[in-house]
């Protein structure tokens, strides 16, 4: 049973995400037609915000994994790094894609190169893509792990910058809707409930995804070690 925990988390998370999607599109109340150019498009936020939340969790894992490998040479740290990059890429792409759809409907343009949060988040996703593709292009070894861990550590600077970006430079991107402090948090309770279900579901899904990814990396390492033994190496 214990060995099936990642799959269970993945399954429960997936069901929760589907539920969020259904509730967000069909049940949650509409926003005021005066507050938005395209009120219907706002419903994509029930996908956009939880996936951004999950992406931050994944980027956090990427940072911890990078630090563990770089400073402690921990093999578990490297597995966390790999899992964090893959999950960060998946969630980052979901966030960026849904944000572009909303931006096209609300702003009239899918991307704004002067919006700091948009760009820093896009860069985090590109960093994850760079790390995933880069790792696949190199043989496994300390050189590969050191280099990509360094980029993982540098890239994490973007996470707090992305989080506080709309508080410092609110050019186009809406301000925070979660943990907004005294001057925010104008969401109706039904909207908050759907967002909460979404955030929980994405969290479970991403944890399950990362656990499975870590298991696969471990198996890849065992396979490589077995192949080396057959080659007559170490």
């Amino acid at each position, binding site marked *: 049973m214990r060995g099936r925990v990642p799959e269970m988390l993945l399954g429960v998370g997936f069901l929760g995400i589907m539920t969020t999607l259904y509730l967000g599109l069909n049940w949650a109340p509409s926003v005021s037609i005066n507050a938005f150019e395209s009120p219907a498009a706002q419903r994509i936020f029930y996908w956009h915000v939880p996936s951004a939340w999950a992406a931050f969790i994944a980027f956090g894992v990427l940072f911890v994994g990078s630090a563990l490998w770089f400073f402690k*040479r921990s093999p578990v740290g490297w597995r966390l790094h790999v899992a964090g990059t893959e999950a960060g890429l998946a969630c980052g792409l979901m966030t960026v894609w849904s944000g572009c759809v909303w931006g096209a409907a609300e702003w009239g343009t899918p991307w704004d*190169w*002067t919006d*700091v949060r948009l*760009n*820093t988040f*896009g*860069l985090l996703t*590109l*960093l994850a*893509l*760079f790390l995933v*593709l*880069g790792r696949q*292009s*190199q*043989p*496994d*070894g*300390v*050189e*590969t792990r*050191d*280099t990509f861990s*360094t*980029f993982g550590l540098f890239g994490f600077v973007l996470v707090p910058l992305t989080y506080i970006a709309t508080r410092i430079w609110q050019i186009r991107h809406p301000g925070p809707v979660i943990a907004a402090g005294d001057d925010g948090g104008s969401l109706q309770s039904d909207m908050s409930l759907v967002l909460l279900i979404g955030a929980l579901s994405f969290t479970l899904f991403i944890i399950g995804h990362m656990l499975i990814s870590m298991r696969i990396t471990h198996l890849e390492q065992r396979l*490589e070690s077995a192949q*080396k033994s057959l080659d007559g*190496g*170490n």
Partner: protein
Amino acid sequence: MAETLLRLEDLEVSRGMNKVLSSFHLEIKSGDVVVLHSENGAGKSTVIESSARLLPLEKGSVFHHDTLVLDAEGRRNLPKIPFGLTLQSNGLVGDETVENHLMTVCALSQMTTDVTPILESYGLAHRKHDRIGQLSGGQARKVAVISGLLPAMLSSKPRLILLDEPATGLDQSAVQTLVSTIGQLRSAGHGFLIASHHPSMLECATRLHDLKEEVEHKPSDDKTWTAIGHPEPQTLVAARAGNRYLRSTRAGLARNGLTALLVLGTLMAFVDPSNIENQTLLVGFVLSAPFAAGLAGDPVLYLLREQRAVDWWRANVQRLPSADLFAPLTGVIFTAIGTVVFLGRFDWKVTMIGALVLWLTMASVRFIEINTLRLARPNAVFLRLLLPILILPWALVAEYTATL
């Protein structure tokens, strides 16, 4: 008592997933010739490259002349006394002439000399003014070996010389010359660490080391080498080499200049500035050419990728040759053209900002590229994916410039 030229203390070095060296100790004193002769893959080159500060250490420290130059904490200090290095893959830039390369080696030792007699002894005098890329493999190897020996040939004080497979690719007479030179330099008090299986190299050793244990060896007596160098203080050797590479190859124009020109041309084909009143947009067009030229990267770094020349330079200097002088000049030229085309007048403030944009963009790209050089396949990594990080600062600079 003989001076210690190299001390490796408790080295642990990993390459790939293998721990190549573990608890490795070695000391080379003035007059020693230590030849590493273990089997392939045992770590001979790893010892040489660790001694030259090219590989990060998992544990241990490297000392040159009793001064720390590398340790496992990440300290990487430039040796106070220059040393000679011949890498297994030459470390030469093909567009450099033989004489220029050897004079650069002299300059790194703060010395000068006439290199013709040395080239004559290796049968290369007639190739002195030729580009290294025009030489045969064996001739290029001779140049790499001479540049490794040169710091010792120049100096009357003991120097450390690191040679990785120096006899590979050399003809018999060149090997004989090499063995004789090593013997004479050893008699003059210089110290050698050599990785080789070549029987002639083994003959000139004072100690034979198989990375587990070493045995003493008595080489034949040689006459003593007389130093041929004359002191000549040199500054900014790497920067001057970078500019020389750019002048001889025009790589900066080919990579960065043409990129800027293409961007300007493309914009001019589609944009009529007389119909645009938005100043930010027009300044954005002006600054796009230097920005694109900067994104093309440092042309000198691309030249240094040939035959691991970048590693040879990394061993010898703290700051690699670069296009630092070329970048702002190119930035001035293309931004000035842009201001005339898109703003209708020459604007020196925008031109200066354009020069700065090109220089900073190129430096950022170089920083990212240098950090991936250690990878097994640095060219296969998707570096361009990281470059959009520069678009936001560029957009903010363009926005600010429009307000001037």
